């Protein structure tokens, strides 16, 4: 359903993505792991054109684009088939939780107000915020804000939801409430691409894990393939650093 071929991206002289191919099937949950600066987030942001990649092609559903020459119409078409959950939530500060969820429906997709409100309420209920419909983001905790962010993405019913380190800005006690919601929607068969440092969560929900380092995909496979039987030395080194307890068990 999503097919990315040979994507390149450099910031000045710093080459961040060095020709990556990714294919994601409908309903698949992909988790991207890797050290900081390996290009995980950049890859994600290139998919919905928050960064403009230097070269490469993408097919998403029935839309085909060349990253470099995408017109603003094509970019809008891609963005209206995707949704993103941000590391720093990025809720619209001037809108309530419900208005945040409704905004993309009403303004971008021209869904009638009443229908959008109904979808919005359902989504907020789903992420466990039934009592916070009219709260402004400034009145919500980090975990609550991120759950609104997830509801906002879900409401759009996109082909794929991109999660950019959704729990990295949360304190440890709030991480679990967000992960629980993500697990729930992963089980509903929504296509997800998740960048995260939560390894046990990745192990739990991923259909496939991609390990990125230095702008390339070093290794990919099922969680078991990677965590237990990693073939590449770089993968083993990374996992050893980030989950030391694994090396004792094996």
């Amino acid at each position, binding site marked *: 359903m999503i097919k990315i071929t040979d994507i390149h991206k450099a910031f000045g002289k710093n080459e961040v993505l060095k020709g990556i191919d990714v294919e994601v099937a409908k309903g698949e949950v992909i988790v991207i792991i890797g050290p900081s600066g390996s290009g995980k987030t950049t890859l994600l942001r290139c998919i*919905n054109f928050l960064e403009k990649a230097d070269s490469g092609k993408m097919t998403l559903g029935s839309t085909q684009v060349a990253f470099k020459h995408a017109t603003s119409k094509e970019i809008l078409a891609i963005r209206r088939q995707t949704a993103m959950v941000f590391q720093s939530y*990025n809720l619209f500060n001037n809108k309530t939780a419900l208005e945040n969820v409704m905004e993309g429906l009403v303004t971008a997709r021209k869904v009638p107000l009443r229908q959008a409100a109904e979808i919005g309420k359902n989504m907020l209920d789903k992420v466990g915020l039934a009592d916070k419909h009219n709260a402004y983001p400034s009145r919500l905790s980090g975990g609550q804000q991120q759950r609104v962010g997830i509801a906002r993405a879900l409401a*759009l019913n996109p082909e794929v939801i991109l999660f950019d380190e959704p729990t990295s800005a949360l304190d440890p006690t709030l991480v679990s409430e967000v992960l629980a919601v993500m697990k729930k929607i992963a089980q509903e068969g929504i296509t997800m691409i998740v960048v995260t440092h939560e390894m046990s969560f990745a192990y739990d929900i991923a259909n496939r894990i991609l390990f990125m380092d230095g702008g390339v995909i070093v290794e990919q496979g099922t969680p078991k393939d990677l965590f237990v039987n990693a073939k590449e030395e770089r993968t083993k080194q990374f996992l050893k650093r980030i989950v030391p307890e694994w090396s004792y068990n094996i």
Partner: protein
Amino acid sequence: MNFDVYFMLSALQESLKYTWVTLLLAIVPFFFGILFGTVIAIIRFYRVKVLGELLQLFVVIIKGTPGMVMLLIVYFALIQGFDTISQTFHLAVKSKDINLIYIAFAALTLTATAAISETMRGALTAVATGQYEASYSVGLTKRQTLRRIILPQALPVAIPVLCSNLIGLIKGSSLVFMISVTDLMNAALIPANTNYKYLEAYIAAALVYWVLNVVVENIFFWLEQHLSTYKREVLV
């Protein structure tokens, strides 16, 4: 020192009669200043090629020109330019037929536009980039993002400075006596020309300005509260 309270009161009465002129001289340029200034700020904020740079030059030039100099330049340019044009077209209208208040409007609008464009540009930079990214990610166009997400958040930031801009205009409008428009200050001074009781006249004018500006500040304070309901209050 001999302070003539009765004369001050009568000067006060005179200046109250012309307070509406001062208000008009402040509010009309303020209105157009917000209109043009916001457009200039947006164009400069998005770094539109050529136009953005031209507007930057315009703002720098206008901002660096004192209010009085601007007023007199516009006055002489319009008067001389108008007569040349009306001569070439054999029109019956002469420059002396123009109501001078329009010249004051033009000059004050120029000054206000430059100042307010900077107010709005500052307010736009105060909105975090994440707000744009979130907006684009849910499929809003650039224009929808600006109208629905960015401007509603920039406006409350701009309000305190806009208030200062308006107060600046109210005070700055007192310069129009230079081109013989009668505003509240000029109205207070006219009776003093016969008896030289200028101190009383100026104090009368100052009192009116002071009351006007306190009212303006209160209106803007209310606006600020009203527009920032979504913000968390800071405990002090």
